[in-house]
């Protein structure tokens, strides 16, 4: 052990939005605070770096939000995406606290902007951060420095010492050397375990090695595991994660939003054998894009290919990697390393099955196939207008659902049903209480901000 640290009032494990809201909340309540962020400084803030908006209830238009978004509507949206897997008490607390958090963020210098081009449907419900989540968290780090919050980078919590339900101290590996940090309260705000491929393979087996992790490589679930091992109760299905279709050329970690592809519903999706395997036109893309990670994970070698032609290629937002482009399907098959005969046959069969209709990719149109297995039920246009474009696809993991059960004070609940008096959780590590499945755009940041502030305030009170 190297030089001893002073005893802090609050130790915050993590360095993203929830962690910084907790740290600021605790410091502004008078507590001394140390933040242990396991990433180096340039990678600080976990998946908040990739976030971009905050879902906020409001009764009337604000600087950036249009119209109104009531508690009931917000709650119903949540019920719908989670199929009811939400803790109503916590969910309503979240929703009711969101406007006050919006004001708190503005007071702390967070800058918002009207909803981004192409996301106008979110302009009523979601406040966008000017410059995105990294800009947001930069603001919090700058305030933390002014307020004298101690921030440790490359600081991974590797062990917790508890006396019964009480947190005593944590062993933190700082730049590789272990130090004992004692604090009167702990806030666990260190995210999920989506970057821990070994953990993912517990549920997914060998397939997990072909997963691409969309965000930070530092969400390895260490603190989550430690607290579960110390008797914390869990929420959420341990085998579930939010998984979408990504460009297979994306980096293994941290490729961010730019690697996502929206071409899938506009053409066909085939697997390595050149065969279609699911209805690409099942429902509107916003409602279906998050099933494709799982679908591709179930295909051989966890790879698939989205193929469109020149009629529809320009209808989606450009993505980071240029498409493979060819004058014929056979040539495209060669570029994508697929069997030309099979792909040609698949496209031929698809084209012959398309029923004429009036194409409209913004609604459930009447262009479909007849007699295919599986059929494409909407937006089925013949692939007959070269050039043809192909994108390789992999499952891209956004986040995991397994988390710590908490109460409305943000306290971690133990398996005996009692809250740990000085252990709090905020952000993705407890999001499963509210988001049992699915996703609602911008709610992750709302959970982090609301429960970060609750946990920070609670931790500061727990020190008295």
């Amino acid at each position: 052990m190297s030089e001893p640290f002073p005893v802090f009032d609050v130790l915050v494990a993590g360095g993203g939005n929830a962690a910084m809201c907790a740290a600021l909340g605790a410091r502004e309540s008078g507590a001394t605070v140390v933040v242990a962020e396991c990433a180096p400084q340039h990678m600080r803030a976990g998946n908040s770096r990739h976030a971009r908006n905050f879902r906020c209830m409001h009764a009337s238009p604000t600087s950036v939000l249009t119209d109104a978004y009531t508690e009931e509507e917000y709650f119903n949206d949540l019920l719908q995406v989670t199929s009811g897997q939400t803790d109503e008490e916590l969910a309503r607390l979240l929703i009711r606290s969101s406007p006050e958090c919006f004001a708190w963020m503005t007071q702390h210098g967070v800058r918002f902007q009207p909803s981004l081009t192409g996301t106008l449907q979110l302009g009523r419900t979601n406040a966008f951060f000017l410059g995105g989540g990294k800009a947001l968290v930069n603001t919090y780090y700058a305030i933390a420095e002014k307020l004298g919050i101690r921030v440790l980078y490359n600081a991974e919590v590797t062990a917790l010492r508890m006396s019964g339900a009480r947190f005593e101290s944590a062993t933190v590996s700082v730049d590789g050397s272990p130090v004992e940090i004692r604090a009167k309260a702990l806030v666990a705000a260190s995210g999920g375990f989506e970057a821990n491929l070994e953990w993912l393979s517990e549920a997914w087996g060998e397939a997990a090695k072909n997963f691409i992790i969309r965000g930070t490589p530092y969400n390895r679930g260490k603190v989550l595991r430690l607290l579960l091992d110390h008797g914390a109760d869990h929420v959420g299905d341990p085998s579930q994660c939010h998984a979408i279709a990504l460009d297979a050329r994306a980096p293994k970690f941290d490729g961010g939003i730019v690697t996502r592809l929206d071409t899938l519903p506009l053409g066909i999706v085939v697997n390595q054998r050149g065969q279609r395997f699911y209805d690409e036109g099942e429902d509107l893309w916003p409602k279906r894009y998050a099933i494709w990670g799982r679908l591709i994970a179930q295909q051989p070698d966890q790879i698939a290919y989205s193929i469109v032609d020149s009629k529809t290629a320009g209808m989606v937002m450009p993505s980071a990697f240029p498409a493979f482009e060819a004058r014929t399907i056979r040539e495209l098959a060669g570029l994508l390393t697929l069997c030309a005969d099979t792909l040609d046959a698949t496209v031929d069969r698809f084209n012959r099955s398309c029923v004429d209709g009036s194409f409209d990719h913004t609604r459930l149109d009447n262009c479909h196939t007849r007699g295919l297995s599986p059929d494409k039920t909407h937006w089925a246009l013949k692939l007959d207008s070269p050039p043809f474009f192909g994108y390789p696809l992999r499952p891209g993991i956004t986040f995991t659902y397994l988390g710590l059960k908490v109460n409305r004070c943000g306290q971690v609940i133990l398996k005996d049903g009692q809250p740990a008096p000085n252990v709090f959780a905020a952000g993705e590590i407890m999001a499963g209480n509210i988001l049992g499945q699915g996703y609602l755009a911008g709610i992750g940041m709302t959970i982090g901000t609301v429960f970060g502030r609750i946990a920070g305030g609670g931790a500061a009170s727990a020190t008295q």
Partner: protein
Amino acid sequence: MQPSSPLIQEGPVHEGERLLRLCNACRYCEGFCAVFPAMERRSKFSAADVNYLANLCHNCGECFYACPYTPPHEYALNLPKVLAEIRVESYARSAFPRSFSLAHRSSTLIISALVAIAIAVMAAIAAAFGGFASTGADFYAVIPHRAMFVTLGLVFVLAAIAMLVAFFRFWHDAIRVPIEAAPLIVSLEDTLRLTNLNGPRRWFHHATFYGFLLCFASTCVAAFYHSVLGWRAPYPYCSVPVILGTLGGIGLLAGPAGLFWLKRKRDPALDDLNPRDFGDSFIVLLLLASFTGLLLLALRETAAMSWLLIVHLGVVLALFASLPYGKFMHGKFRFAALLRNAFEQSRYTAIERQGTEPK
């Protein structure tokens, strides 16, 4: 597996195309400045597009700090730095003649030599046609009016021709939009009000720009007095040329000094340009010109007048000669980029993401 070939093969413009493609798939920064909305109007970027977007960027750095993909991330995305490199490239490519451009060489030595030569030329003119005696603010006794007019006028006309050629080269490379009244008015307003700049940089830039214009106006009024009205310098302290020149001189002291100070405070990550003194040499020339001009005004009745005049005119001569080859050109290029931006704004909207939710 390698995707189909990119549009541009090499150099900073090639790197710019790569970065803009990434930025266009992200768009989190679209609220920061005009570059991002302009980027969103296209799905592919030609060399001309990259060049145009680079000259819309004011290098405020906001997008760099907000970006999760900056080095050492494997995307190695540093948009302001790469756009700055492309801008320097565009100054170099457009200069007339190209080999005179200061964009790719260390200009401190060249500018120092130029100033020395220009002062020597002025001193030689004084020796040949005037004299070195400082008699009661009589400038023309040191350098006769005709010699002053011919020397400065000739260099200025040559510089103006070089600037016009450079402007049209840049226009051809990056702009090429039809000129219409409404976009022209919008872009002129953007240029004259610096609507895309914020904070002290905007005010220092205003002081520099309008200081320069006031000094130029002072010179024109003085020329008019002399040639048309036959009124000989020196003009009284409350005359139009002296008031314009004094105000302009003060602006040209405060503005460039402020810009120089801001440049020293800048994060080197944003524009680690080679050469770094490209903008500095222009700022220093402006400062020298205003400082010697104001000093000349203050000491015009003293024995120092003749040499101060020679030095001041030498600095102004060097400034004129260097205008087409240095940082001065950025204003013209930016105006052209703003014009294209205003034209596009009047015509196109962004290519939109199909109504998808973010995560």
